[in-house]
């Protein structure tokens, strides 16, 4: 069984000034995740490592560099799912945590629950000695300026989506050498969101889903639209019925466009190692490692390759 890892850095109209940094960021994260797989790590460990790398990169809307809510604060959502057991862990609206994906994994592994929210998630973090960071350390200069701009002009969230300027989510899917799949998704949510807004990312079947019998998916895009069609589960249901990973992704994103006028993207890996990175937004930064090849892209139909070791 050859291991595969795919990551995305969010599907949206990535502006030119962030384009190169986004591509570099997903390539670095894909390398991090795949090195975990190559050294015999599990799919779970690989998706966690890849998403941590994306959270730590201020270019992306997760962990450091997350968008600010209407009060100018960072509130983060994340989830992780193990395709072997169907167990998952998630946190929603958590503050002062640099790597929410790791806290989500702790929820899965150290509690009998699957999701902790708000203050409860922070209390849990404290109880297991999970390190917290000052709120300001997660705020990038870029996001502070964006927030102030919006505050000044009182632009709403809806307007952001019309302009396709929403800044989105990161995620990873992986298949390890033992044939296990996993997914992880992490986000700061929508700019100027209401306090306590939970999007699709931490919701099982929406922001992600993983099942060793079918495959693993991580989604990005307009959260409320992804929720309406439970996008991750929808893609997997098409695969269950015999579609390829790429057909299943295209069909489901098309359904989301036709039915609820939502745009987005998804990365998928199947237990046989088939993978796809698909989106209906203007751009999505993605990267994948298969054998010794690193694949990556940003524009629709763009697929570049380079050798992993060069």
């Amino acid at each position, binding site marked *: 069984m050859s291991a595969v890892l795919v990551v995305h850095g969010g599907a949206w109209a990535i502006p030119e000034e962030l384009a190169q940094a986004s591509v570099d960021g997903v390539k670095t994260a894909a390398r991090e995740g795949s090195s975990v797989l190559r050294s015999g790590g599990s799919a779970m460990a690989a998706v966690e490592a890849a998403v941590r790398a994306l959270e730590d990169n201020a270019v992306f809307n997760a962990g450091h560099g997350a968008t600010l809510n209407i009060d100018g604060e960072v509130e983060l959502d994340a989830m992780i799912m193990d395709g072997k057991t*169907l167990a998952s862990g998630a946190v929603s609206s958590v503050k002062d945590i640099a790597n929410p994906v790791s806290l989500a994994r702790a929820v899965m592994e150290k509690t009998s629950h699957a999701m902790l929210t708000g203050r409860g998630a922070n209390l849990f973090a404290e109880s297991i000695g999970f390190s917290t960071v000052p709120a300001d350390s997660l705020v990038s200069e870029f996001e502070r300026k964006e927030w102030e701009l919006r505050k000044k002009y009182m632009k709403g969230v809806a307007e952001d989506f019309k302009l396709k300027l929403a800044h989105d989510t990161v995620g990873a899917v992986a298949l390890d050498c033992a044939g296990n799949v996993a997914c992880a998704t992490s986000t700061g949510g929508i700019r100027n969101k209401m306090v306590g807004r939970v999007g699709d990312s931490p919701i099982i079947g929406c922001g992600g889903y993983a099942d060793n019998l079918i495959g693993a998916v991580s989604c990005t895009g307009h959260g409320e639209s992804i929720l309406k069609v439970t996008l991750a589960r929808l893609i997997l249901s098409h695969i269950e019925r015999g579609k390829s990973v790429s057909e299943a992704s295209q069909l489901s994103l098309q359904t989301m466009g036709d039915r609820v006028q939502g745009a987005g993207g998804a990365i998928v890996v199947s237990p046989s190692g088939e993978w796809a990175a698909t989106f209906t937004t203007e751009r999505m930064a993605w990267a994948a490692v298969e054998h010794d090849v690193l694949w990556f892209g940003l524009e629709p139909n763009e697929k570049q390759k380079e050798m992993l070791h060069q």
Partner: protein
Amino acid sequence: MLLSQVTEMLPVVLVHGGAGQIPKERSQMSTSGVCSAARSGYLVLQGGGSSMDAVVEAVTQLENNPSFNAGCGSVLNITGEVEMDAIVMDGKTLASGAVSAVRNIANPVQLARLVMEKTSHACLTAEGASKFARSMGVPEVPQESLITDYSRMRWKKNLVPDANPVECQMGKMGTVGAVAVDAEGNVACATSTGGMLNKMEGRVGDTPCIGSGGYADNLVGAVSTTGHGETIMKVTLARLILFHMEQGQSAEAASDLGLAYMKSRVGGIGGVVTVDPKGNWAPRFSSLQMAWAAAQNDTLHYGLYTGEHFTQAIDDPH
């Protein structure tokens, strides 16, 4: 002929009061509670209300009834407090609204509907949900008004060192929920819960998670689920059942398939209420009991144990 059959099938409302093991002394209260909730939902539908109006009304009744684990009568978390989750979904637009870990609200299902209708979001959590409630003028209620002697007794019982967590969960597992189809063929679902007894602070179960606690789509049907939340989430039970219906299974067969899969794959038990857009309905459960009631064509249907199905005229007060 066909038209008149269709007319007789609609509208319909189907409610559940939770799947689990209901202590004998409380089973009568559960049955009468779901029956009166189904009647209330049906009255809304007869008065020309939408399926969304009907499920919210039915679930509001169940939240207000201290016999159920939702609203007043919710189970207590580890620190002895009430934190509630709820969701509504409109099958016509696929829009949904949810609240998670919300406190001091008498009717979380109504707040979930406000999230759907008054915000551009689909879920608000914890403090943020309370803040939104205040901005909408939803009255805050003292926590004491949501706590019953029974829920406090169970909480204390479960805190003792040798408590049997399985036994203590029994009888208070259940979430409440409703599904409905209105005269126009629109489907909707609503689910509300106090969650799991002695849960951690901030724990969110399946109920407010779209596709797990409920799902509604005019093209397929609507489902509201109950049972062990973490297990329901593993299989996204509501969405799973609707996938089976999309493949041509009846509401009943699809519900059984979904529940059987949850049992075989992840060892979970639970219950569901399911409708299709034509008005076919099915209350199905793999637990020992589930209190359920349905109202259709001026007839009230209800049951508690597997295979139980009583009927009476809707205006029969008993």
